[in-house]
């Protein structure tokens, strides 16, 4: 039986990491530095969060460590892309490879297990009064992760930062024409650095969400493509914070449908698991086709 309320809950749970990664990541994309290392950044953060939570027994320390790891890894990406001018895809991929292997190695040498770490203290779930008593959507607010609740203010903040502040204007200008921005007196490199670091910050939140809120441990390869789908959400959401959130909800919904359909319909699980990935390709294609049509009309 497919229950509407469980689909809703799963949609929100699955889209949290995508929305966070996307909303921060779009700043880098807007400034002209794309980061396919979001995947690895989230993985590093998830692991750092678990380690800190394990040693201090405080999930808040875990959250701080996750965010710090996200910022540090994106600093590495920024240094390679902006200062050393390395091909962005290559260094992003290098970060992903390094993250996949270093976390497994560290997990096995610190905790003695390659597959997963022991269970650690996780962030508290919040139960929102009043809202939790609503029909259908009530389950959504019964025990929701703190970080999930943060997504909406963060998206609004990103919207404000991007469109209503001089900093946001600088990011957009640098991405559209770095030379013109430079001539107009914008510090191009500093703008790009901070834009990439913003992505690292939200990826840190996303990683911590996965390991110490959604689960309470680190599992090998636990990000499993969410970083890449976050990039797809950025493209599909047309580099706009609210659009990216909607795109993340869309992909989260596809994932929730995948979970709901498993075992209930006579379609093999493998086919259902393909749905979000096929949708991603189609969504990006249609988006690009629309952009092309518009620029052809000009």
């Amino acid at each position, binding site marked *: 039986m497919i229950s509407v309320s469980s689909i809703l809950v799963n949609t929100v749970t699955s889209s949290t990491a995508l929305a966070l990664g996307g909303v921060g990541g779009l700043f880098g994309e807007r400034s002209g530095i794309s980061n396919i290392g979001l995947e690895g950044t989230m993985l590093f953060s998830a692991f750092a969060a678990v380690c800190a939570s394990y040693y201090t027994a405080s999930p808040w320390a875990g959250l701080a460590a996750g965010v710090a790891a996200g910022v540090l890894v994106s600093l590495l990406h920024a240094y390679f892309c902006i200062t050393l001018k390395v091909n962005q895809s290559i*260094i992003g991929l290098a970060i992903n*490879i390094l993250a996949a*292997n270093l976390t*497994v*190695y560290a997990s096995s040498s610190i905790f003695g297990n390659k597959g997963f770490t022991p269970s650690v203290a996780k962030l508290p779930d919040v139960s929102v009064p009043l809202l939790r008593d609503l029909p259908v959507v009530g389950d959504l607010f019964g025990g929701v992760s703190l970080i999930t609740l943060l997504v909406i203010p963060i998206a609004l903040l990103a919207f404000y930062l991007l469109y209503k502040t001089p900093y946001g204007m600088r990011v957009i200008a640098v991405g559209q024409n770095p030379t013109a921005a430079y001539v107009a007196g914008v510090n191009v490199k500093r703008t790009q650095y901070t834009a990439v670091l913003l992505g690292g910050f939200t990826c840190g939140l996303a990683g911590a969400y996965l390991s110490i809120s959604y689960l309470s441990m680190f599992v090998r390869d636990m990000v499993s493509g969410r970083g890449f789908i976050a990039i797809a959400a950025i493209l599909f959401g047309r580099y706009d914070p609210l659009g990216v959130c909607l795109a993340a909800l869309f992909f989260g919904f596809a994932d929730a449908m995948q979970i709901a359909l498993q075992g209930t319909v006579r379609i093999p699980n493998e086919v259902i698991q393909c749905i979000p990935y*096929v949708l991603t390709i189609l969504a990006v294609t249609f988006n690009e086709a629309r952009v*092309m049509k518009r620029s052809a009309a000009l």
Partner: protein
Amino acid sequence: MSILGALHNRRGTGALTQAAIVAVSFLLALAAGGLLLLMQGHDVLPIYYYLLIQPFTSPDSLVKVLVKATPLIFAGLSVAIAFKCDVFNIGVEGQLYAGALAAAALGAGVSGLPPALHVLVCVLGAMLTGGVLALIPAWLKVRFRVHEVISTIMMNYVINNVVTLVIVDYFRHSGPTPRTPDVLPSARMTQLAPPSQLNTGFLLAAALCVVLYVLVQRTPLGWRIDAAGKNLCAARYSGINSKRLVLTAMLISGALAGLLGAERVLGGFGYLQVNFSPGYGYDGIAIATIANNNPFGCLLMALLMGLLSYGGTNLNIMTDVPSEWVNVLSALIFVFVVAANAVICRLPALREKRRSMKRRVQP
């Protein structure tokens, strides 16, 4: 001059410089990896012995290094040919599964062919499957400007799921592990040193290095691919159909990935197993980047990675160091080489900048 000059202004370190960079990066990675081990209180020297010296002490283990290197050569070449055209084929990981499935199906399903012909049919089928699947992201790229990084990664997930589905539900060998039935003996590639898995696929991979070198360096097609990769605008102005080139380069790249799958199925295992690839496609990207997309460089790097990979299994057996440590090592080599290349490519620009600063200070 203008077009030719424009073609040579990107990414240019010579083979010797590149070799020196790789050697230094390798040593640096060994030092960093050693530091990791020291921090955990391991004795470093025996670990390096098992990793780097022991494989050379017997012909048996040398053969195993070649076995590990064979798929990596295909992977490196596959990524390199796409890179030459400035296309980023992250989809090798998926294309190789598709090729492997085609080889397994043709190898087990078609009977009555003489051995050499049967192998040829399987290999061609695998190459075709890999190539056609690589054409999808290539077509999306040239038609709709969909970035190939996104489309190939998404396709990897899809292909892996579909191949797993086919193996588990439709084409399963009766047994505990999910795998296809054995391919017929007539479809097996000739084994060169049984009981190891070394087979003619290794020779094929080595020969392909020469073929690709000639293709890129000595044929008009290769020249066009190289030109389009180095400077798309200049290439277009000189009359090159860059869209068709992207499709061609991806077709070749996907075919090589399919060949990788065929070698594993027909030469290595004799059947197709779920999730058999430890990430050959991603290793291929590291190899091609480190080798500067040079086919012979890919061969050497694949041998080095094969050595590390064999050393990793060695470490797993002989010491209590997990084999992931070796993967960290190769990832570090990748990062160091990328960094060193970037610094070296920027040296002339930096020198020029310093000179102009000096001129400004003392007019």
